[in-house]
Structures are given as structure tokens and as C-alpha cells.
């Protein structure tokens, strides 16, 4: 079995193939601490968080076609839940992770009225909610800090660096695993139909608002969990550090760069952008933002499907070169192609 057909089999085969593939990936990555120094471990944690966030965003933004422009609010709320929970109430890390996820999902549930509107309104509303929360968390004395003049929380790291590494690796596994399962389930079909043609979807019986809401809540809960776990890792949580617009933008960029609406997109995008980031930061000090921006423009203009579509295009070509038969895809699964509309 060569690489091309293996990739194809993983993509179109039953869910367990993908889960297995994910497990192998996680196991390989889990060996990293054996060969990496603190910096690289720390960097890996950031990459995990970025991929986890992007994957969560991808669920509603990529698979559902509803771009959230304030998804950072869920990460921020999670991080504040972590900081306030651990410092003010002395809660253990697992507890604040659950709280962070629950709070974010509850917040997402408030979006149901907005879901009746089209994607643009949704994007705007999420942005507005993020900016409202940014101000509220900054002004509210309960979340502002322990002392009146504080504007942020200092946390003691509750785990050693390796501990965080495995914690976030595990979370990443859960997130990606859950997304693999979700997109191959009934919800996945609903999302696909909604993204392609929402009017049509509802006309053939898909309860669009319900499925959008479920998806959005899942996609919000994970950033909440990640945020709560990230608080002690970051050690200093303030509105400035966890509500930065760049957090939301990163989710979107990573997803688009890798390929929106594909499971592998955010993973590929997260890794690729981290590498580019490292090179640009290290070598083109004052130009790295320019490079970053130019890259975004280049990928959206030339390859809107992202790296994943480049890869799958290559796989398809290799396959059809090998044996010119029509695609014998397994029935019963929504296609995982990139969101390209002719």
C-alpha cells in the first residue's frame, strides 16, 4: 500500500481509521520531550493550543460556514475562569477546565437568536460580544484582579512544563478526535448542507438553527477548556494577554491556511504557520508582519482551499494517474473536500 492510497483510505474510510491515525500522530508527538529543550516544549504547547483553537473554530467556521470573528472571547472567558477559579477560589486545574468549557458553551448558547441571521451578521455579533466581554472582564472588580488596582492575575504554574505538554497534547487529541466524530455524524451532514445551501437544507428538513447552535456550543466549549488550562501555563492572565484580537485572527488564519472545512487543515496550518513564524521572527525582525500578511493574501488569492486542498489535489492526481477509475468513495460520509464553490 503506497502513501497515496493510504492517505486516501484514511480520508474516505470509516471513522476509526482517522481516529487511529490521530492516535499514532499523538503517540509520535508524545515522544518529543525526550529530545527537546524547554523552549521547544513551550513552543510545542503554543502550537497545540493554536491547533486546538483553530480546529474548534473550524467546526463552525469551516464546516458550518459561519465565520466567528470573536471566537477569542471563549478562550478569554476560559482563561479568566481558570485565573479567577484558581486564584480567588483555589480550585484545582481540572475543575476550572470544566468550568471554563461550561461557561463558554453557555455563552455560545446565547447566540441562538443571532443564528437566524446570515453569516455576516453572525460574524459581526461575535466580534461585538468579544469586545463587550473584553470591557466587562476588565472593569468588573471580581474579574479584574485580587487588589483594586490590579488588572490581571498572576498564577503559579501548577504543573511542570512536561506536565503542560502532555495536558495540552491530550486536549488536542480530544478536540481533534471529537471533531472527527462530529463531522462524520448526522451533525456533520447537517453542517455540510448548511454550508452549501442553508435555504435548501432547511427545506429538506434540516433543523438548521438547532444544528448550528449545537455546533457552535461544541466549537466554543473547547476554547473555554483550553483557555482555563492555559491560564496557569501563561502564569499571567490579563485582558490584554488573553483577549488580544490576534488570538481570533490566528484561529482563522491557521484554518484557512491549512484548509477550512477539513479535519487536517488546522493541524497542517498550525504546524506550517509555526514554522514560518519561527523563521520570520528569527530572521526578518521588522518585516515579519509584512511577510505574514503577504502570505495570507497569497494563500487566499492563489489557493483558497489552503494547503489541504493542494495536498488532496495532488493525491487525486496521483490516484487518477495510477488507475483511471471513477472515485469509489465509501458511501455514507460527507465529503471532506475544501470549501470551494465554483
Amino acid at each position, binding site marked *: 500500500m503506497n502513501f497515496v492510497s493510504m492517505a486516501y483510505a484514511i480520508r474516505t474510510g470509516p471513522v476509526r481509521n482517522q481516529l487511529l491515525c490521530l492516535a499514532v500522530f499523538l503517540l509520535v508527538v508524545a515522544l518529543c520531550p525526550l529530545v527537546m529543550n524547554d523552549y*521547544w516544549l513551550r513552543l510545542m504547547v503554543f502550537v497545540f493550543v493554536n491547533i486546538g483553537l483553530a480546529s474548534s473554530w473550524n467546526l463552525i467556521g469551516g464546516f458550518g460556514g459561519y465565520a466567528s470573528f470573536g471566537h477569542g472571547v471563549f478562550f478569554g472567558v476560559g482563561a479568566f475562569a481558570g485565573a479567577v477559579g484558581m486564584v480567588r477560589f483555589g480550585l484545582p486545574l481540572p475543575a476550572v477546565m470544566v468550568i471554563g468549557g461550561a461557561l463558554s458553551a453557555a455563552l455560545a448558547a446565547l447566540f441562538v437568536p443571532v443564528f437566524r441571521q446570515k453569516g455576516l451578521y453572525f460574524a459581526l455579533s461575535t466580534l461585538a460580544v468579544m469586545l463587550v466581554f473584553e470591557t466587562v472582564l476588565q472593569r468588573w472588580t471580581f474579574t479584574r484582579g485580587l487588589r483594586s488596582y490590579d*488588572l490581571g492575575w498572576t498564577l503559579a*504554574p501548577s504543573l511542570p512544563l512536561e506536565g503542560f505538554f502532555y495536558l495540552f497534547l491530550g486536549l488536542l487529541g480530544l478536540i481533534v478526535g471529537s471533531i472527527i466524530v462530529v463531522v462524520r455524524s448526522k451533525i456533520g451532514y447537517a453542517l455540510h448542507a448548511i454550508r452549501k445551501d442553508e435555504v435548501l437544507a432547511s427545506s429538506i428538513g434540516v433543523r438548521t438553527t438547532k444544528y448550528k447552535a449545537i455546533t457552535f456550543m461544541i466549537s466554543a466549549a473547547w476554547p473555554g477548556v483550553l483557555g482555563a488550562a492555559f491560564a496557569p501555563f*501563561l502564569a*499571567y492572565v490579563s485582558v490584554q*494577554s488573553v483577549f*488580544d484580537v490576534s488570538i481570533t485572527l490566528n484561529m482563522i488564519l491557521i484554518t484557512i491556511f491549512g484548509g477550512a472545512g477539513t479535519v487536517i487543515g488546522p493541524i497542517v496550518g498550525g504546524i506550517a504557520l509555526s514554522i514560518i513564524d519561527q523563521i520570520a*521572527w*528569527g530572521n526578518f525582525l*521588522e518585516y515579519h508582519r509584512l511577510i505574514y500578511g503577504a502570505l495570507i493574501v497569497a494563500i487566499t488569492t492563489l489557493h483558497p482551499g489552503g494547503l489541504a486542498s493542494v495536498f488532496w489535489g495532488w493525491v487525486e492526481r496521483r490516484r487518477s494517474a495510477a488507475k483511471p477509475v471513477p472515485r469509489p468513495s465509501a458511501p455514507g460520509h460527507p465529503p471532506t473536500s475544501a470549501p470551494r464553490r465554483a
Partner: protein
Amino acid sequence: MLDRAAIPRRPSRRAVLKGGVLGAGALAVGVALPRIAGAAGGADGVVHIGASLPLTGPYEKVSRICKDAFDFWTRTYDGKMVVAGRERAVKWTIYDDENNASRAAQLTEKLISDDKVDLVVGTYGTDTVLAQGAIVRKHGRVFVQAGASSIRVDEELGGHTAFTANGRVGTYCAGAMDFLASRTPKPKKLGLVIMDDPVYHEIGQGVKDKCKQHGIDVVTEVVLPMNVQDLRPTALKLRGAGQLDIVYNTGWDVICIKLAEEMSAIGVNPKAFVGGHLTTSPVVKETLGSKMQGIIGSTVWLPQFKYRDDKYASAQEFAEKFKATYGYLPTYQAAFSYILPYIYQQALREADPQDPFNPKTLRDRLSRLDLKDTIWGPVSFDERGRIRRDAAPAVQWTGDPAAAVIVAPADMAESAGVYPKPAW
């Protein structure tokens, strides 16, 4: 749906663009890889200094000043630093932390664990310095910084991890407030504009303390979010407070500019306007033009200060050489950035040749450091790792084109100062 044929498609240009992107990518990798490989090994006989600065974003211009000042120090000493009695080549590694705390932490980790720098100097900004400090502390190392003056640095990092070469921000207002309190008729009413961030609250608290001391009423206090855009509502609020003697802005240079613009636009004419601690930034003078007249600023450093060191006979000479190199007069950020490697140099001059950068001995040396003459003035640290220095002198902008003259404290004053200031 739209007819595809109607959209202009030019495959040839697309191909060219694609080729260009690929080529640029290949080039970037080609350029980058050897440099990455090169960065790994630090040869002996080199002092490797690591830093991060918010080089992109709103703090860009300040960061450039800081970066230039690092460079200026390196040039001044021909790229050499005397460590343990032996001259070593200096190598800088500077990253961009974008004023983002988690980025700063990550980059500091990179500097220490990956680039294996010998010394770390602090970045610019409270959040980022705190995040940076957490990492430095984790490694049991020490760093010198001047980019964060908040009392939080003392509380969380002071003395053991951080040595802060900048005075407490609570004292920034001392010169200006003492100067104003000594005027006749004595100012009675003050309007205070505070940015909603701990540092600015600290500055504001300092102003309030001084007001209490001098019997001045704080009649109105406006707290503004950090991302405030429009200052006219604030100006209107100040006007609503009646005739004010003093308006004190704790915010940075842009806030000062906007506040001055809006106050002048709607006719708020306080007898004195303290523009804050960044009025010496060249941008302020350029933008405000003739409205600079009479604005008071607090500053921790000016070329006029009677400071000197082993290379420069006066701060003025330092400033002129700096200007000759970079094309602008150094601000206080330039001076405090220059002083950071300078402090290391002084502390390490007689270090143990076996292990010159040992954190423990470096910490001791820094605590015991007592420099009388530097471009930044006398340098010694208290038990919290804070430079021993309180009041910041006050300057006032007078003449046409306006120039900053020191008006307080009395022993440094170059001019008696103007009060009340001319109307806008």
C-alpha cells in the same frame, strides 16, 4: 450564481504570482536556514545578549529607539564588552514580542534555553516584562530592565530576578507638581486624566498624593480605557468641571496630543497642562506645533541633565553623537536602554573568569553596584532591585519653536517657568 466566464481570469499572471511566491519562499528558507544553524552555537569569547522588544504595533517607535540605543552602546564600545577583565565580542539577539505577554514569555524562553544567551535585558511594557520575568525567574536567572516601572515588578520580581533601572512611576509627577504648587496664584483645582492600567493608576495616585500634600483639589478624575480613540468627551468633561488650574494627563504621548487638540478645539484653557511623562517624544512637538507652548512634562532624562560617563563628557555630547548616528535626539528611552548593557558591563568587569555569568554572583554584583557617573545618572539598586531615585524633573516647553527647559527641581532648573501658560 455568477457566471464564471465574466470574472477576468489571467492564468499567465496567476502563474507568475505563484512562481513568485514559491521563489520568495525558497529564498526565505535558503536565507533563514544557515542563520538558524548559525544561531545555535555560541562561540567562546562572545557575550551573547538577548532581548525582545515590541517592534511592531503601537509601541513600534519606542522600540526602535530602544533598539537604536542598544546598537549605540555596542558602537560606543566597538562591539566589545569587558567581562572578567577580558574583552569579549558582543552579540545581540533581539526578537519582536509585539507587546504580547505570552509571546514575550515564549521568546524569553527561546533566548535562554535555545539561543543560550549569557544576559537578558528587559523589554518595554509592564505585562510583557512581568511575563518575561516569570520565565527568567523559572531559570533562576537575573535580568536588568527599564521598560516597566510599575510597583508590581518590585513585588513580583524585584531584587531576586529583576533589577529595574527606572524610578517608580508614582514619583513621576513630583517635579511638575512641586513646581506648580510653588506658583502664584497658587493653583487650587486639578483635573486628572488616568488611563485604565495599573501603571497609569500608579502615576495618578502619585498626583493625588502630591495634591493632598500641597492642598490642591482634584475636582474631576476621568478614567479612560486603554484603547480610547476620541478625547473630546474627556475635554468636555474637563470643561464641565469649571475653570481648572491644572490638567494632568497620565497617559502617553498620543493621549497628550489628542487631549491638547481637543481642549484647544472646544476652548478648555487650564492655567497649566501637564502632558505626562512622554512629552519629550519628538512626535508630540512635531504634531502639536505652536500648541506646545507652556506644556509641562515630567521626564526622567534629558540631554541637559548634568550626567557623564567614561565615554561621554556630558549627556549633551551623548545626545549629539546619538543624533549624528540615528538622525534624532535620544529620548529617555534611549538613555535607559543604553544603560542596560552598560550596567551589565560595570557589574561583570571584575567577574570570576571561570563562571562570569553565574546568576548568583551576578545578582550580588548588581545589588552592590554603585555607579556615580553614568549617562543615566547615579545607578544603585535598593533591596527590591529598584534604582534609588525619586522625583522626576519637570520640563516646560517654551520659545518658538518650542524647546524643553527644566523648571524643577530648583537645583536643576534652567528657567523659572511660565504660569499660567498662554491660552491655546
